[in-house]
């Protein structure tokens, strides 16, 4: 019987069977950030252990760093600079490549890794961060772990893992004009629910997935953790090879040619069997927006807030709690709901193509009075490239704040946030209670929907905009 893409990668990395279904798996890359990575490095040191191979390890500053222009080590989070200092010291001591504040390679960990070809097809990559699954978009196995697991990977270049189940999600057809990878991700989540992947590795495939560029694939895989997946991946193809060629840590010359030859075999065999098979029709994917406090609480933009009977994954209690928190009721219209703020950023949607699409909506227009609008590029490189194209000027002219790269207000670490009760349209991945600040009401959407909503001051699709003056 044929093997799945996941099984091929797994088999290549299986060092030994530890018995009872647990296997010792080789880890090729370990990424760290100052929020959880510093803890892991520090704790490793205290235990008197060393990093087995520092050349496999990369660290960045993204989670607590300030993103306001002219930033320093000081953060709005009272003790944030301690995380930065601890990570910097521990990374230097361990001989790890660190993308520090001033480094042109700095940025959100899941943005800089693909951008610099730290992640490659067929690799195993781990990071103490749940959105590590994003990087499966390049055709490798990337998954989030805790700090103790990260210590294990650092110390031994391996992890003890129970082989996850597999799930194939085939998306046929083409996404309609105006629907994006973010909308597809929310569409899938709304169908299968926040626990729908049940710890499996999702392989996304089908015509609609193959048609996505690498940045859109990263957006799609990013949200697999919101379905409770172990990870997600997409078979690497020419789109991926063309994207990676020549990037900072990509293999060069003869090694590159050998690598691409090997990567071409990374696809599920036609007769491979998956534990679960799901299929979706891309033509049914409309621009989406979330209404509640879990990404599964998402509906097409024109739809109403579902009643309990229309919310298949909710108990009466969780449905009521979500509505209370969001200040909504079943049957309320989502489109037209007034917003207080708009946020474009995060490892889901802050790459150059995201900013370009948002800028196309913003060009010649201005954010509605009273709406605070913020754009935080996913990496310092994205920021520089956007500025070279003049995208920053479009955002600024439209009334957006233009920030330094980082996670920023994707999550509230104790520093800057929106105010309690404020309604925010956001290109991020989590609408959990208080995710963007205590009491903040988050509505997830694509960058273009965020941009259009910012202009109109209410939740709206770009097609609702009048032509620019």
């Amino acid at each position: 019987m044929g093997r799945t893409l996941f099984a091929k990668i797994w088999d290549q990395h299986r060092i030994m069977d530890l018995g009872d279904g647990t296997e010792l798996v080789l880890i090729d890359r370990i990424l760290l950030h100052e929020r959880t990575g510093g803890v892991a490095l520090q704790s490793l040191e205290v235990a008197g252990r060393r990093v087995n191979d520092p050349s496999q390890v990369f660290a960045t500053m993204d989670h607590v760093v300030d993103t306001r222009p002219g930033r320093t080590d000081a953060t709005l989070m009272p003790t944030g600079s301690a995380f930065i200092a601890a990570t910097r010291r521990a990374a230097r001591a361990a001989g790890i490549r660190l993308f520090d504040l001033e480094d042109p390679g700095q940025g959100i960990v899941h943005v800089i890794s693909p951008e610099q070809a730290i992640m490659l097809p067929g690799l195993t990559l781990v990071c103490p961060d749940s959105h590590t699954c994003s990087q499966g978009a390049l055709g490798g196995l990337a998954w989030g772990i805790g700090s103790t697991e990260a210590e294990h990977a650092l110390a031994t270049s391996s992890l003890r893992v129970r082989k996850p189940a597999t799930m194939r999600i085939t998306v046929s057809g083409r996404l309609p004009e105006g629907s994006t990878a973010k909308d597809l991700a929310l569409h899938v989540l709304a169908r299968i629910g926040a626990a729908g992947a049940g710890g499996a590795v999702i392989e996304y495939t089908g015509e609609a997935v193959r048609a996505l560029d690498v940045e859109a694939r990263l957006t799609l895989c990013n949200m697999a953790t919101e379905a409770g997946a172990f990870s997600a991946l997409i078979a690497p193809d020419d789109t991926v090879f063309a994207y990676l060629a020549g990037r900072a840590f990509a293999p060069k010359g003869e090694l590159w040619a050998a690598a691409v030859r090997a990567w071409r075999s990374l696809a599920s065999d036609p007769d491979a069997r998956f534990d679960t098979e799901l299929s979706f029709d891309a033509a049914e994917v409309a621009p989406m927006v979330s209404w509640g406090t879990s990404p599964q609480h998402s509906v097409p933009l024109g739809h109403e807030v579902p009643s309990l009977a229309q919310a298949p994954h909710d108990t009466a209690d969780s449905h009521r709690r979500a509505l209370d928190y969001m200040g909504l009721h079943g049957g309320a219209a989502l489109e037209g709901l007034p917003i207080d703020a708009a946020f474009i950023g995060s490892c889901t949607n802050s790459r150059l193509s995201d900013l370009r699409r948002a800028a196309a909506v913003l060009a010649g227009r201005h954010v509605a009075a009273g709406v605070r609008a913020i754009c935080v590029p996913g990496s310092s490189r994205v920021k520089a490239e956007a500025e070279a194209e003049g995208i920053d000027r479009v955002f600024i002219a439209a009334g957006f704040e233009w920030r330094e790269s980082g996670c920023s207000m994707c999550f509230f670490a104790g520093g800057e946030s929106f105010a309690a009760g404020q309604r925010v349209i956001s290109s991020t991945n989590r609408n959990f209670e208080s995710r963007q600040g205590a009491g903040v009401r988050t509505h997830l959407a694509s960058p273009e929907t965020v941009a259009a909503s910012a202009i109109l001051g209410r939740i709206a699709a770009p097609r609702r905009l009048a032509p620019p003056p």
Partner: protein
Amino acid sequence: MTPFTTLTAIAAPLLRDNIDTDAIIPSREITTTAKTGLADGLFAGWRYTRIGGREPVAGFVLNDPVFRGARILLTGANFGCGSSREHAAWALAEYGFRVIVAVSFNPIFRGNAVRNGLVPIELPASAIAAIAHETEGDPATRLVSVDLPAERLTISGATGYDFRLEPEAKAMLIAGLDAIDLTWRHREAIANFRAADHVRRPWVYRGQSERH
């Protein structure tokens, strides 16, 4: 890691689905790079009346005196979803929990729990509701017992439920083993595997020699 074999304790019900790690320990409560000092921040958003405050919300289960000293948490589906922060497991353990009984767990949280001596037990929603119901009213005398080697949970020696934990997690919890020590016994096998892999996939290796 503290070994775990059996435990008889008060079980506190928090029967909600999709309790995420931001809810278990909000980011704002994580103010140092240490793994400790987190118990006070556990469920802070639900437990206290004000952000950053410490005045208890009257109706929240952990603020109810009858659940003081609870070491078993009963909860819903997909517990520990969201951020991978291990602080969620650290905060639960530091507060005193040793067992989480849920309909299902997020895979990252589940791994973090086992690495920190927290036993993740999966039971059907109906069983968890029944346990909560049976202990209701007098949780301090209707105690719940967990026998990890026997993989059995019982209420005051009466109603019992079998559960399954994968052997590796079970063995590590019972012996309180450190996974790195266990794996490092195979360091030669790891080094040999990497050396052979270097020949198979030379583009993966970035040129620095092994340090050991």
